[in-house]
């Protein structure tokens, strides 16, 4: 209990100390999470919408793979990305290992199935007759798809929140692919691990509280994106 109280006090002190090291860790955490969420959204929403709206042979298999991906251990993904970007790996010559780029790639792979899977579920929950009725009103396939995604926006935003939650709180893949290098690849989660190992529990708790605040603020913005309909 004492550690928790100390952690709370230190969190407040840390935030208002404007310590550049802390803010670089926060900035890197948000940067890596933001980049990975951006690319997983760019790929995940169209694929989720496609899976939710179309029927084709092998769709069930693709859906099963997606659901498996939603529960895939992040550390295994980290290991996979590590091997790809390691010096002897197929993309070793890029020199991305132990940089925010490799961390972003790993987190994108973690977030993608969540974004695509939740988007697919959201689109499937929209009345299937809507698409035909919009086409009867003169909508092109693309226009009808956009309207359906807008109808499913509460679920689509949930997919983004799930993707963001997974990457901002993730530590295994980030440690493996980033290496937890101070000032270069250290994120809030890897810093928490480090401070815990060093016995600085109050600092670890303070970092944890900052992480929670960041996550809360981001989700607050996302609930605004869902619109008023979500809160009736």
């Amino acid at each position, binding site marked *: 209990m004492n550690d928790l109280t100390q952690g709370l006090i230190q969190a407040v002190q840390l935030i208002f100390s404007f310590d550049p090291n802390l803010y670089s860790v926060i900035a890197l955490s948000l940067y890596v999470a933001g980049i990975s969420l951006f690319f997983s959204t760019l790929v995940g929403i169209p694929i989720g919408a496609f899976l939710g709206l179309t029927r084709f042979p092998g769709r069930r298999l693709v859906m099963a793979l997606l659901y498996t991906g939603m529960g895939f251990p992040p550390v295994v993904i980290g290991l996979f990305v590590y091997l790809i970007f390691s010096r002897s790996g197929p993309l070793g010559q890029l020199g991305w290992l132990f940089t925010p780029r490799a961390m972003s790639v790993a987190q994108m792979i973690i977030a993608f199935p969540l974004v695509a899977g939740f988007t697919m579920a959201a689109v499937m929950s929209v009345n299937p007759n809507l698409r035909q009725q919009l086409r*009867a009103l003169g909508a*092109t396939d693309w226009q009808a798809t956009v309207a359906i995604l*807008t109808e499913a926006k509460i679920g689509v935003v949930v997919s983004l929140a799930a993707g963001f939650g997974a990457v901002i709180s993730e530590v295994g893949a980030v440690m493996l692919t980033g290496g937890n290098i101070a000032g270069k690849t250290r994120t809030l989660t890897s810093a928490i691990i480090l401070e815990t190992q060093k016995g600085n529990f109050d600092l670890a708790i303070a970092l944890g509280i900052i992480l929670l605040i960041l996550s809360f603020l981001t989700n607050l913005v996302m609930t605004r994106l869902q619109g008023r309909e979500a809160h009736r």
Partner: protein
Amino acid sequence: MDQINYHVHNLAQTYNGRLILQIDRLDIYRGEILAIVGPSGAGKSTLLRLLNFLEQPANGYVTFEKSTLNGIVPALEVRRKVTTVFQNTVLLNRSVAANVAYGLKVRGEDKKMIDRAVAEALERVGLGKMAQQPARTLSGGEVQRVALARALVIQPAVLLLDEPTANLDPYNVKLIEEIVAEVNREKSVTVVLVTHNVFQARRLAHRTALLLEGRLVEIAETAAFFNNPTDPRTTAFVRGDMVY
């Protein structure tokens, strides 16, 4: 009314290998109201979907004006001349006005024109004061009136009606029928009305056709269809006897 709007020839539709519709020949004339009656599962809604180019036929073709549907999706501007009011209307989770505006927005019309046309269309269906109301708060009758307004606002050449008044109260049925008749009379909009309500067909249609098990049994002027049917199955259907 003698100009042909649609020419249907050897049209067949199958779902999972099962024959749903088989029409050897059907001409629909510009500016007429054609009622298609028949029991559930007769293929009436399938025919409407084909006339609205919403699906491809398994065989045969539908010629609309100068465009033929026989495996090739018609141009967007051709498809946009036709619209359907469905039995189970699905509205967007937006305001009533936004729902009515949808067809004009996808056509890229300017906002001033859209606002004016939407206001007119809503007045026409008696929902002028409900423009800003969320669509999900409407009653069944109001939903169908919004469906009619969103179809009329795009000024279609052909209006396809798929049981538009099924399960509605007499007030809404009368209102919708009056608007349909008015639009047909004033703007020569071709109307194809699918209904299992023979009284509605009798009230509205210039010609009536009976569709049974996917086949066209009889088509005639509405008075002749009901008073002097030539096919015994039509006689039975008009009387309300089972004809399955």
